[in-house]
């Protein structure tokens, strides 16, 4: 029983994110697959690498449909051991379709 508990906790810790926040609008309209960027925050966010996350795949006026910020076990451990001075995270973003296309045709 103890072995199972240890196994489950170890697997849960290593296979899942130790932190994750998802932001999306009430009617998400995704313009494609998520893009993944590795980022690091230093000194409590005073320095960030990259300087800011550029959602470069969002072209032609597209905004963001979804942003997921997550930290896995290894990233969480680095943050813990450095007392938050180095805080790596993974950012996933999806572009939003620019607008609702008008209905064509009709009439007659």
């Amino acid at each position, binding site marked *: 029983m103890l072995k199972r508990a240890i196994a489950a906790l170890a697997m849960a810790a290593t296979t899942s994110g130790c932190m994750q926040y998802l932001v999306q609008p009430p009617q998400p309209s995704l313009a494609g697959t*998520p893009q993944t960027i590795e980022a690091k925050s230093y000194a409590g966010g005073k320095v960030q690498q990259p300087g800011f996350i550029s959602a470069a795949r969002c072209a032609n006026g597209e905004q963001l449909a979804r942003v997921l910020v997550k930290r896995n076990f290894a990233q969480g451990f680095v943050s813990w051991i450095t007392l938050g001075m180095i805080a790596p995270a993974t950012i996933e973003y999806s572009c939003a379709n620019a607008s609702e296309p008008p*209905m064509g045709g009709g009439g007659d």
Partner: protein
Amino acid sequence: MAAPQPSFNPKKLWKNFHETYHQVIDGEWDIFMPQQTAGLTVADLKETTAQFQKLIGDAKQQGLKVRAIGSSWSLSKAPTTSGWTFNTNRLRGRLKVKATDVDPAYPGTAGQKSGLYLFQCGNTVADVNKALETDAQKRALFTSGAANGQTIVGATQCGTHGSALEFGALHDHIVALHLITTADKHYWIERKSRPVMAKAWVDSLGAKLMRDDDDLFNAVVVSFGSFGVVSAVVLETAPRYLLETRPTQVKLTEDLWKAIGGLDFSVEPFNGDKPYFFQAVINPSSDDVLIMVNYRRDDPGNFQPNYDLISPPKSIGPGFDALSTLGVILDAFKGVIPPFSKLAAKQLFDTTPKTGTPGMIYGYKPPLLHVASGSIAVALPDARKTIETLIQLYKDIGPVPLVLGCRYVRKSPALLAFNRFPMGMMISIDGVDSTTSRAFFAAAPDRVEAAGIAFTQHWGKINSYTPQRVAKAYGANLQKWLDARHKLIPAAADRALFDNDYIKERGLAG
């Protein structure tokens, strides 16, 4: 206005939406829609066609495979490719078919004729619902799957269905489609028995009209992207209506079996009131059944749909990635599965009574990774035997973090339709992706087969199709489907562009 040129993304790892598997690819092409001020035109469709054809030609020259991919919603590997993926999500043009563009031989009623709409492949089911259900259009889909994030082409290519008792699956709305097969060929395909678009309109698109028989259309309409790029579809729609949901929690009694196994609604809790939509969700770890019934209300007047999915700031629910951890924990602690299943059924199925358009009822859901789902369809007379077989399997290898959702769909003329039976019961096995769940999915078809029950499996969900099972399930339709693929893509090298391991392993490639 001209569309921006396709943009290459050197992405090497593609994951399906629910992140239950990944695939190494050679890059992704983003395809853009022409800027529209007055709605989609034939010129826009031609421009997009030319862009797809250029990319198909380039891929062939470079020895790469290709696939058009929508929302990546499938839990099966049906949409995968090892080469280039074409991201179609931005192709969301739509138009109401003009009466003058309809073929004079169209056999539909005046009401059906005024409810024909063309949607480009990247429109999601949510987009289609929202476009149809406006005050300006006052139309609706006859049926829909539980989710709305799939593209209309992705969902229909894999056979997505709902549980409207008098209708087929989502693909049974489609009456015409535009197919791009090679760098120099594209087709407008319809059934001979149901001509839709006037030849002059098809000629203006520059596509070759194919409607010499029904088989060609019936092959392509459910083909998992194996025939090329399905660039647009024409749907027949219903006048706008509302659905009134009446969810109830009941026990699995002999009376209830009459409804689940025979669609007899004279029993409690229906009392003779036949619903438009019926689903029974059985928790195999107990005798609890969640009854989801929706009643149709026509002529909703000026009802204003609200599609918003809002998570109240103080609410608590499973996070985006909750199920990946839960799967591991439930594998280790099987004893907690039965109470968990009860809780999960409440999370998976909205049990709040409400009234709304189909687009609201089958609307946005909280996104969850690592869901597990597979479906088996059987003829209605085999319904009870099949459910009992699966409950026995659950007892033999369980408990398993899954519930059995029983839905009902009428037969489709599509050659490889999941809804193959005159009235079929689709058992949707839904829950958490875990080792025991996967064992259940692997064993379920074996058990149903051993019980001597004829069945099909959902192409877009976890399935255990083999070439033998596909041949047994579809009989002569299988050869017709293969023949249609050879007819539309005669050269083996061109067919190979759209081959993937999924169709190879099911005897559908080559």
